[in-house]
């Protein structure tokens, strides 16, 4: 196969923000997750935990709580506002001021008719959920001290509210507080500090479970207002609780980074009476666990250390299957790096700014395994700060490197770059239609900008030195309302392909300016698409790791794709747990497809036989040890290189050298604040 010169880039200082809250919708199996910078992410747990949608955050938006009501998603935060999200257009739909100071918590009744928020001023505010908006209904009896956590009894009659030093039970109808349960403070020095009831859960048997800042998980009788049981879980805070749907299991997240599971079981074998027993402790985080979700089969946790961890409960899933494997989602499932192949430039997308780098140069030659002397160091050419408080949703750099576009929830901006003496000029007059751009993409000759807009449509804009002109809008026939999350053009400028979260892939003929075809819908969401520069085959990789090749000319799957489907992919390939986020092609050899996930990149040589189920998939080491003549007998189409870890982008420059952008997790970890101090042996 040969040697590659690899630019190993580690200077993309991408740092995801801490996970602040999450909510799991068990009907749609979607997990909504919000980070400290206000960014919202939707994961589809039914489709390999794929990160389907991202709504970028905003400066100053601190979301504290999330709540699903049916398909609708609400959030509330310390800015005192309640927000409903428009998950089709990936933006906040509207925002309502609650007038109660910072909001700590949000919840809804089981019927999905009422929304309540707990405010800093001690009020619990009820909102009626209408079709298009929410309307303030009433306040519950105002208390002294902030309402930190809320839980609605499934019957809708009682509400438990966690406060400072106590838990209140309200009658939902009258709005009066019926019980006041005092929560004991911590011992020692923390005796003088108020204890915060960070989380409460009201179960259908009128049991209230609370987690507090003194490290206790307490079980109360909600009818009598008495304490049933105290479990001291940690020396630090219990920050969040989550109860399984059937109320048989409960998890609590702590500042130590542990998640403690309690189960409602009889503590001895022949005893009828069941009680909450502490059963398991998971330690998957280094820092505070701020958010938890108890799905039917797994514990989902996230916190300060920015990673989303899905830990299947082994009593709920079959052992030693892919289902039982723990998943850590550390990097986004979309590309934050854009590579201008012709210019050798890299565009890095951060939440609030963009950076353009030129890769370094080396004139040396070396043996495989060598590092070449760097003749010219990589340099940062441009750092572009986003305007307004809105964070960046998507960005693109034209292949020639002269155009840069980025979009936020509210606008699209286009810049012209010059490198001889570096300058950046904003293109001031953009067409009015170009106001939304979930995905941005330049044509390969840099004369057109494509921006995906509402309802999977694509706006085409022509670029030249003088002006930027709206050409037309491409619309799919399916009428899908979902946003486009992948967009790509062909090298010859003839084709444009889009993929949306309804798993639809539409291909447009840019010459005829109309829809060319729709690829047969596959059940799993596409994670990367690309059109082959010479054969015009569309390669699609899905969240379930399947690979399809579709001939745009013949409008059918290619022979190779059929063969691949018939034979099936190698089981180890299917077991990988990070999606392929980028596909590109080799200019030298048209039979090569280059794709990567977080832990490897792979060159698929379509001219070689596919690996059979018994052959070794990761065979590079074996091949290396074989003599030249024997290699050909043992080699197969999947050439997987695992030299690089935590890969964010693999791209091929015009000089055939590879650019691999890595973001080592250790580097990210080192930027985190110090975790709570724990006494370790010999310290």
């Amino acid at each position, binding site marked *: *196969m*040969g*040697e*590659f*010169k*690899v*630019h*190993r*880039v*580690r*200077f993309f200082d991408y740092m995801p923000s801490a996970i602040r809250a999450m909510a799991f919708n068990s009907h749609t199996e979607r997990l909504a997750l919000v980070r400290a910078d206000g960014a919202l992410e939707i994961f589809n747990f039914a489709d390999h935990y794929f990160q389907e949608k991202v709504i970028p955050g905003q400066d100053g938006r601190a979301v504290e709580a999330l709540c699903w009501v049916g398909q609708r998603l609400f959030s509330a935060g310390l800015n005192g506002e309640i927000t409903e999200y428009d998950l089709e257009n990936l933006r906040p739909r509207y925002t309502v001021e609650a007038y109660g100071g910072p909001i700590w918590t949000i919840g809804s009744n089981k019927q999905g008719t009422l929304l309540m928020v707990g405010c800093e001023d001690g009020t619990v505010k009820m909102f009626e959920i209408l079709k298009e908006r929410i309307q303030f209904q009433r306040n519950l009896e105002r208390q002294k001290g902030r309402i930190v956590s809320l839980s609605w009894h499934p019957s809708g009659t009682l509400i438990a509210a966690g406060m400072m030093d106590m838990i209140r039970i309200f009658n939902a109808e009258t709005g009066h507080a019926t019980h006041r349960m005092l929560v004991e403070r911590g011992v020692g020095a923390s005796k003088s500090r108020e204890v915060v009831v960070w989380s409460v859960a009201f179960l259908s048997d009128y049991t209230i479970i609370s987690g507090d800042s003194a490290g206790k998980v307490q079980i109360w009788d909600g009818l009598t207002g008495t304490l049933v049981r105290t479990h001291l879980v940690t020396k630090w805070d219990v920050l969040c609780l989550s109860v399984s749907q059937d109320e048989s299991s409960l998890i609590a997240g702590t500042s130590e980074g542990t998640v403690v599971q309690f189960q409602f079981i009889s503590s001895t074998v022949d005893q009828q009476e069941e009680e909450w027993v502490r059963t398991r402790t998971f330690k998957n985080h280094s820092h505070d666990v701020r958010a938890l979700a108890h799905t039917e089969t797994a514990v989902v946790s996230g916190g300060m250390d920015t990673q989303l961890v899905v830990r299947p409960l082994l009593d709920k899933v079959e052992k030693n299957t892919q289902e039982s494997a723990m998943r850590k989602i550390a990097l986004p499932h979309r590309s934050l790096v854009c590579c201008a192949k012709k210019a050798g430039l890299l565009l890095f997308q951060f939440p609030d700014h963009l950076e353009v780098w030129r890769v*370094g140069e*080396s004139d040396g030659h*070396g*043996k*495989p*395994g*060598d*590092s*070449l002397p*760097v003749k010219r*160091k*990589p340099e940062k050419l441009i750092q572009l700060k986003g305007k307004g408080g809105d964070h960046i949703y998507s960005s693109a750099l034209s292949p020639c490197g002269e155009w840069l576009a980025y979009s936020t929830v509210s606008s699209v901006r286009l810049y012209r770059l010059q490198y001889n003496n570096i300058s950046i000029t904003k293109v001031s007059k953009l067409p009015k239609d170009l106001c939304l751009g979930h995905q941005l993409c330049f044509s390969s000759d840099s004369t057109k900008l494509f921006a995906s807009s509402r309802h999977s449509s694509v706006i085409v804009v022509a670029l030249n030195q003088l002006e930027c002109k709206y050409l037309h809008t491409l619309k799919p026939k399916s009428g899908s309302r979902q946003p486009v999350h992948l967009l790509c053009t062909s090298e010859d400028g003839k084709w444009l392909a889009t993929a949306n979260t309804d798993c639809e892939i539409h291909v447009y003929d840019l010459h005829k300016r109309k829809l060319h075809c729709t690829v047969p819908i596959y059940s799993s969401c596409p994670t990367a698409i690309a059109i082959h520069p010479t054969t015009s085959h569309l390669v699609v990789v899905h969240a379930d790791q399947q690979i399809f090749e579709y001939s745009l000319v013949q409008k059918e799957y290619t022979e190779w794709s059929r063969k691949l489907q018939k034979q099936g992919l190698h089981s180890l390939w299917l077991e990988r747990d990070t999606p392929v986020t980028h596909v590109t092609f080799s200019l030298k050899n048209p039979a090569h497809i280059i794709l990567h996930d977080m832990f490897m990149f792979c*060159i698929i040589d379509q001219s070689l036989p596919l690996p059979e189920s018994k052959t070794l998939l990761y065979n*590079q080491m074996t*091949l*290396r040890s074989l003599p030249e003549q024997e*290699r050909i007998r043992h*080699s197969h189409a999947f*050439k997987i*290189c695992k*030299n690089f870890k935590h890969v964010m982008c693999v791209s091929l420059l015009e000089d055939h*050298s590879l650019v691999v952008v890595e973001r080592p997790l250790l580097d990210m970890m080192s930027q985190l604040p110090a975790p709570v101090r724990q006494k370790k042996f010999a310290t």
Partner: protein
Amino acid sequence: MAALYEGYTLCGLVPGQTLTNSGIQGIEAERDSDHVVVTDSTRSVTLYKVSDQKPLSSWTVKQGQTLTCPAVYNSQTEEYVVVSDNKVIRIWKDEDILLDKAFKATVSSDVWRVHCLPGGEPVVLFQRGAVRLLDSLLSAPQQPIEEVLAQEEAIRWSTNIVADSQQFVIFTTEQKGDSFLYLHRLNPNTLQRYRLEREEPGLSPLSFSASYRDKHICLLYLYPNGHVYQSVVSVRGLGGDEGAQALPLPRSLLLGLPVGEGLLEAASAQLLDEAHVAVVGVPHPSAGAGKDFLCIWNTNFQTLQAGKEMAGKIYGQLWTFSNKLFIPHGKTLSVIPYECPKSSLASALGKLKQAKTEEFKAPACVPSWNNILHGDKAQPSRPAETRKTRTNRKTQSAPSLTVDQVLDFTKTAPVEEVQREVEGLLSRADIQDLQPLVGQLASMLVSRSLADPAFYTPSTLAQLVHTQSLCHSVCPDLVLLALERRDFFLCQLCLQFFPDIPEAVTCACLKAFISMPDTEAEKLSLEPDSVSFMETLIARERAPVGLQNGFSSTSTDQDCSDALGGGGRVVIKTGEEDKEKSSTPPEPICPVGLHKAVLLNEVLLTAYSDTFLLPHLKDLSSQHVVLFLQYLQFLYLKYSQDASPQMHGLRSPSLTQIMDWVCMVLDAHFTVLVMTPEAKGLLVNLHSFVKSQVRLVSELGKIEGSLQELNKMKVKKDVGQYSIEIIELF
């Protein structure tokens, strides 16, 4: 192998305009080996503390005046002496701040140098060759000074030397291409003139260096063509025909140094000891033509021993004081410590007895390669005092018997007279010369004692052993004789000083010591160092426990059992071990008396080889074995309790020596001990020691392993922020 160590800068230089001048006129030793006086070429004198690399004080003459000779320090009066403007002698003390206010005297003739050796009197050498003691000169400063040198003769170099309490001023002159050496003895004054053999025409010596060795003055000089010659002048032959005729001075070529291209210009050679010469400004034989090297050559073997490149220009100046070379180069004056150990067979074979004891004992007399090859018997550089005392001793001794007479005398004379004569002989002769004599004397005394039961001279024998010129192979019967006569003090001395006691004899000593009743042992007078060591060890046992270091008695107990149970705190104790802990007595009691313990320690300290010792150890009876083991156990416990019971400077066995002996005794007597009921507890305890040692070692092994892993991890290269790599896919 001589070695040059990492040097350091003493001070910066302000080179003169000519650039050939380092700006330093001279460096002289001050009160001790760590202080030097540096005189620069113009106006100032600075006192440095060498190890601190810092000036302590500095004196300057007025502008317009210049210092014309390096300042010297008179250690007797604690004064500094310097000459300014050739004629003004200035003397001041450390506390004087201004040089101009210090004592001044103007003399009638130009002064070349003032010389002063530690312990000697300052001597003034005039440019025309006259020599005066400073005191006598100052008594009449304007006294007329005679001219010694011829009209066109000029002094090139001078020094002074104290030889056998005689002070010599040595200087070389040059006249029309001829070089002369003058040897001026003071009190009574004599002058001898030698003519140096001519080298190639036009070449005159670049540098001189003189030393006194073995009643000879040894002059070393370096010519620009790289030849280093040595001339030896006897001190004794001086006198008589004073300065009448220039005697030809025989010379021998010591070294032919490589000079590269052209001749040497600025170079210097200094004698370091009888076999080593430091040379500066001469190219390194394997480093091209650059002349900026400092090298140490061995003159016996003509080998280069050490070399160091000096940065910057070399001025051809070099001084040496107390194992440090002072060399100006470039813009700094560097101090480079060096070492010229004697190359000896013993050190080559690694058989020098105990490195630790040698630190504070005078070196055992080990034949030196140099001595063997060149017949030099004297130590290279004995300090002047010993020389003096030795000469004093010599002068004291009244009419006495010659060596042969003493030897004959010992065969027949009664005990007291033999003792007196031998003592006399030893006191008046240089022990170094007496080595064969001591051997003869000792073997004669021993054979006579063996033959004649009534004859025994314990003090004389002890004295002979003390000279450290004896060893077991010289008189193999000495130790056995001492054992036979129950002279355990002598035994101790022999064990201490003989490097070659056979294992059989060691065992015999051990047997004798261990079977000796304690009452008898206490009467002995033994070597005080080893006794005091045992005393402190035992005293610690008897001292009220808990007052030491402010620990309570329980904590000492804890310490003791900790040391017992794990040899450290690494090991987590098991319940089984706790049981053992309670069974061991909290405070070990010494099972033998003080003096007996001292003697046993001496046995433990001797060198041995397991294979030869084992069969002899089997001769011990089981009771003695148990007692010995108990004693070893006691020592072990004591050592484990305390962090450093081995006091520096005292003769004490090391922990490893103790453990080795425990193992050996157990090896030799294991079956017997297993059958002996009273040894059972002992064996259990010893077993626990061994176990703890094994565990400690295994823990250490683990630590070593993990540290090695750490090392390996570091090797893994850091990728950094960016790299361009080549990968290959197959």
